[in-house]
């Protein structure tokens, strides 16, 4: 676009009073000097630019959300690692203090997920899959680990998918749905207002409309690939948890199975963890992942996992070999958090 006629006289008259002094270096005259690009393809490329910018902005929002979800998920994992259960699965729910920590991070994650739902609709879901997937994997790792500690089971894909969809934050966090809050407010107005019927009907109509718009949006899709890769990472957390557990379990209980049960079933928490790690290892080893990008990722993580299992096995070995030299009943004092494992204790 060439400089418009209306701007020139304005800048001219504007500089009038300052003629004696140095010319004020306003940005306007300089901009006027550079002509807008002209040519047969300018309008076409301007459209392209707008479209590419839109994609780029969306991409950046998603990457940012993914990074924040990763950070919050890591914090959930740290909180879980502070647990000191004597049994697996935990016989009670998570201790209050740890649960509160987790809730705080999880609400952040759910808000982030909800915030990018509009950016991941239709074509854009698979398009930005690679950008969101690190965050989703980390979240799967965190909630998968929690699920395991509470139920001693591997979280199923359907449940994991429900968690990452970004649509169920209210249920997950046990908070009230926004629409319900609005309705309560409306009832309050009803009492005060002189024209209760009109206000309530408009307010309700508005909230319903918003709900409908929300319903049209599909939640974030969890791919099987991200699910599996998240579970791989979870085994690393099980390993860390098992090592701590080995170190903090009295020797007599640690090797409970060998003495107490003839069928070799795991008894102590560390034994449960080792057994489950081995079960998972054999399940993962049986997976034929192919040679796609996912296959390469999965192969790498499988090797990490095999190392994790070995680490736990060595921890057991160390306890058996050197543990007998310890004084009777001696336990490494790891429990800096104090009441960390208190909730699960039953002795």
């Amino acid at each position, binding site marked *: 676009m060439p400089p418009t006629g209306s701007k020139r006289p304005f800048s001219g008259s504007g500089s009038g009073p300052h003629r004696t002094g140095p010319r004020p270096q306003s940005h306007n005259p300089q901009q006027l000097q550079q002509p807008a690009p002209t040519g047969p393809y300018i309008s076409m490329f301007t459209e392209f630019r707008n479209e590419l910018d839109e994609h780029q902005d969306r991409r950046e929002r998603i990457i940012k959300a993914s990074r924040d979800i990763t950070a919050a998920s890591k914090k959930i994992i740290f909180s879980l690692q502070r647990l000191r259960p004597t049994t697996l699965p935990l016989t009670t729910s998570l201790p209050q203090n740890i649960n509160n920590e987790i809730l705080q991070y999880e609400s952040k994650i759910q808000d982030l997920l909800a915030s990018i739902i509009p950016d991941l609709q*239709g074509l854009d879901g698979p398009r930005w899959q690679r950008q969101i997937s690190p965050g989703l994997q980390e979240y799967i790792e965190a909630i998968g680990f929690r699920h395991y500690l509470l139920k001693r089971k591997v979280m199923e894909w359907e449940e994991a998918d429900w968690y990452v969809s970004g649509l169920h934050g209210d249920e997950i966090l046990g908070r009230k749905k926004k629409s319900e809050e609005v309705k309560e407010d409306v009832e309050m107005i009803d009492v005060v207002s002189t024209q209760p019927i009109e206000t309530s009907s408009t307010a309700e109509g508005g909230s319903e409309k918003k709900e409908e718009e929300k319903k049209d949006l599909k939640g974030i899709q969890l791919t099987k690939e991200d699910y599996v890769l998240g579970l791989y990472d979870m085994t690393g957390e099980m390993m860390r948890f098992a090592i701590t557990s080995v170190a903090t379990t009295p020797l007599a209980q640690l090797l409970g199975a060998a003495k107490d049960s003839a069928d070799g079933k795991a008894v102590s928490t560390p034994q449960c963890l080792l057994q489950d790690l081995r079960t998972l290892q054999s399940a993962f080893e049986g997976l034929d992942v192919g040679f796609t990008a996912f296959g390469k990722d999965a192969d790498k993580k499988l090797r990490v996992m095999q190392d994790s299992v070995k680490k736990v096995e060595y921890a057991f070995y160390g306890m058996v070999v050197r543990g007998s030299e310890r004084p009777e009943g001696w336990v490494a004092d790891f429990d800096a958090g104090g009441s960390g494992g208190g909730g699960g204790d039953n002795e």
Partner: protein
Amino acid sequence: MMADLTNQAVDGMIDPEIFKQVQTDIDEDIKVRDEIRGLLKSLDKHDRSIQSVLSRVHAVPASSLAALLSSAQPFFEQQRDTLKELDAIASKYPYYKYNSIWTRELQAASYGIVLAGWLGAFTPENEERKEGRLMTIKEVGEKLGVSVNVRETDVFHLSLEEYLHSLINLIEELTRLAVNSVTLGDYQRPMLISKFVKDLHAGFQLLNLKNDALRRRSDSIKYNVKKIEDVVYDLALRKLINQTDSQAPPSQ
């Protein structure tokens, strides 16, 4: 007592169905990829045939260009047919799930069309062939028989990025053509190319590209612009072209 508690979930720790399902999905994914790759092989073949015909443009005078272009026609049709097959498979799945597999081939296909179009391959029969036309993304899609730059529905299409890549290919090819046209004694075509490439360059400069292949390649357009300007300068210096003519594009 404790033994009971700890053992309660051992047997069902993993539902074997989980891994069976994942395996099924992985197998399906690999099968689709193989199927698509099979089609890409024939797309590649058509593309090579088209390129081998069009590359002779550097060696033939403009007068025999019409015959050259029509000899590429059958390959364009084959390409169209293969693309239809690819469309049928690809549209069954989310577009961006597999788009990275075929994006190079689609760039090449789009390039074939924009090059042929620039040379005047698609001028209506009742008009005289004219060089220097930019095929829009929509026109490229029509020639290839595929949708373009789809935003709403999740179907197979030529993406904007793929089209832009093919325009950069076109610029590179026209740079070479500018040089070779001079050798063939055609001093007007470089003028036409110069203006066309400068216009496209102005367009590309409007884009805010992120740091990716498209960005790197579009940054290199300026070298092509310079090369073409050197050709024009050489001609002007020796008074082989009439500078005032430079605004009158057609070389025929």
